[in-house]
């Protein structure tokens, strides 16, 4: 099984063989499924390094490059997004600390306008000048 796989490098044949082997083994060993599965796994493990040889390697490298590029892009995007999120979060977390004095002044004025100035209502605008 190991020899056949080295020749082709194509996944289909290997898979066919593997499936055949599996069927053979399963028929031979009959009962225990666990053993057969384990054997299959071992074979696959053996074949994999051989697969990654000639043309496939280039392809895979290309793929890897592409994927890495995408990953980089994604990463950049992710980073970008994360940075954005980070900035938003931090600004949100610390927003209440910004312009505290101005906010206090606004709150004071709001309070002043909300509560009627009885003194002014009773005595008129003259009191404002006096004050």
């Amino acid at each position, binding site marked *: 099984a190991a020899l056949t796989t080295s020749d082709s490098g194509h996944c289909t044949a290997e898979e066919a063989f593997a499936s055949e082997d599996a069927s053979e083994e399963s028929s031979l060993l009959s009962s225990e499924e666990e053993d057969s599965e384990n054997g299959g796994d071992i074979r696959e493990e053996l074949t994999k390094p051989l697969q990654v040889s000639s043309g496939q390697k280039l392809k895979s490298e290309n793929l890897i490059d592409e994927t890495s590029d995408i990953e980089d892009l994604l990463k950049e995007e992710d980073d970008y997004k994360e940075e954005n999120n980070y900035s938003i979060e931090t600004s949100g977390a610390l927003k209440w600390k910004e312009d505290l004095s101005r906010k206090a002044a606004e709150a004071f004025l709001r309070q002043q306008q909300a*509560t*009627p100035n*009885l*003194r002014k*209502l*009773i*005595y008129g605008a003259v*009191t404002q000048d006096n004050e």
Partner: protein
Amino acid sequence: MATQAHSLSYAGCNFLRQRLVLSTLSGRPVKIRKIRARDDNPGLRDFEASFIRLLDKITNGSRIEINQTGTTLYYQPGLLYGGSLEHDCSVLRGIGYYLEGLLCLAPFMKHPLKIVLRGVTNDQVDPSVDVLKATALPLLKQFGIDGESFELKILRRGMPPGGGGEVIFSCPVKKALKPIQLTDPGKIKRIRGMAYSVRVSPQMANRIVDSARGVLNKFIPDIYIYTDHMKGISSGKSPGFGLSLVAETTNGTFLSAELASNPQGQGAAVLPEDLGRNCARLLLEEIYRGGCVDSTNQSLALLLMTLGQQDVSKVLLGPLSPYTIEFLRHLKSFFQIMFKIETKSCGEELKGGDKVLMTCVGIGFSNLSKTLK
């Protein structure tokens, strides 16, 4: 008091009583023009003329000038003299109208005032004598006006339109008033009332008591409503009935409400049950407004604070009545006193409506008329 200050000038018939009382206390002459000048029946009304006559009786050396139509009044106050007096009040207004003025002036007389007032003791417009007795007298006591002779007594009850009531009011004189610090009204401790009936079935008063208790019993157990049925000459000239309720707090604040039946021949007949129930609800409304002084006596408290020693006085009031607001303006023009007014919202504590904390420094008014012994 006798010093000649420049006179103040006003137009219109509103707040005539306030202006005359403050003029008397400050010694500043006052000129009031255009009193109902455009009315079909121009000039001063009978009850206002009667009030001016009363002022003339209790003072010495007042100069009062009224023009022919009664639309212009010039009043130059004299010294507050006091003594034993009698006065027939106009039946158009209650005795409360005159008594409110006297309560402001009586502590500053030369001689202690002892006056018999005749007229309408209970009507639908003015605070009744019962309410003033239950709320204004304890308030004056807070300012240090007290003594054996300090009393207000109903000798006869008179209802409009006929009148025929009689009360006796006597008040000691004080050289100076104590400053007050009333900022916590406390909680309602008991409710007292007076259900009166004159020239109608005595059962009316009992029916009023039953319906009023029906409302109030849910809130407090300590309720007692007296029934007062006067007969014969003590019952005045007109039939009627009514109820006055007073709630006392743990800190000695008195809050009042009252209702009276429609005068004979005016308006629909009032059921005593409805009157009792509505009066009890009015008392609940007054308790909701709260404060350390009843809304009918707000202006009296503010006046006595103004006239107090040169010390800080504080009082927590419920929402200011329009009468009190105008009174504050008059206090400013006659005594140059402006109050510090702070709103106190009682939203969290669930103690009723918003309150107003009034603070002022007294002008250090001392009773110059009083003879030193």
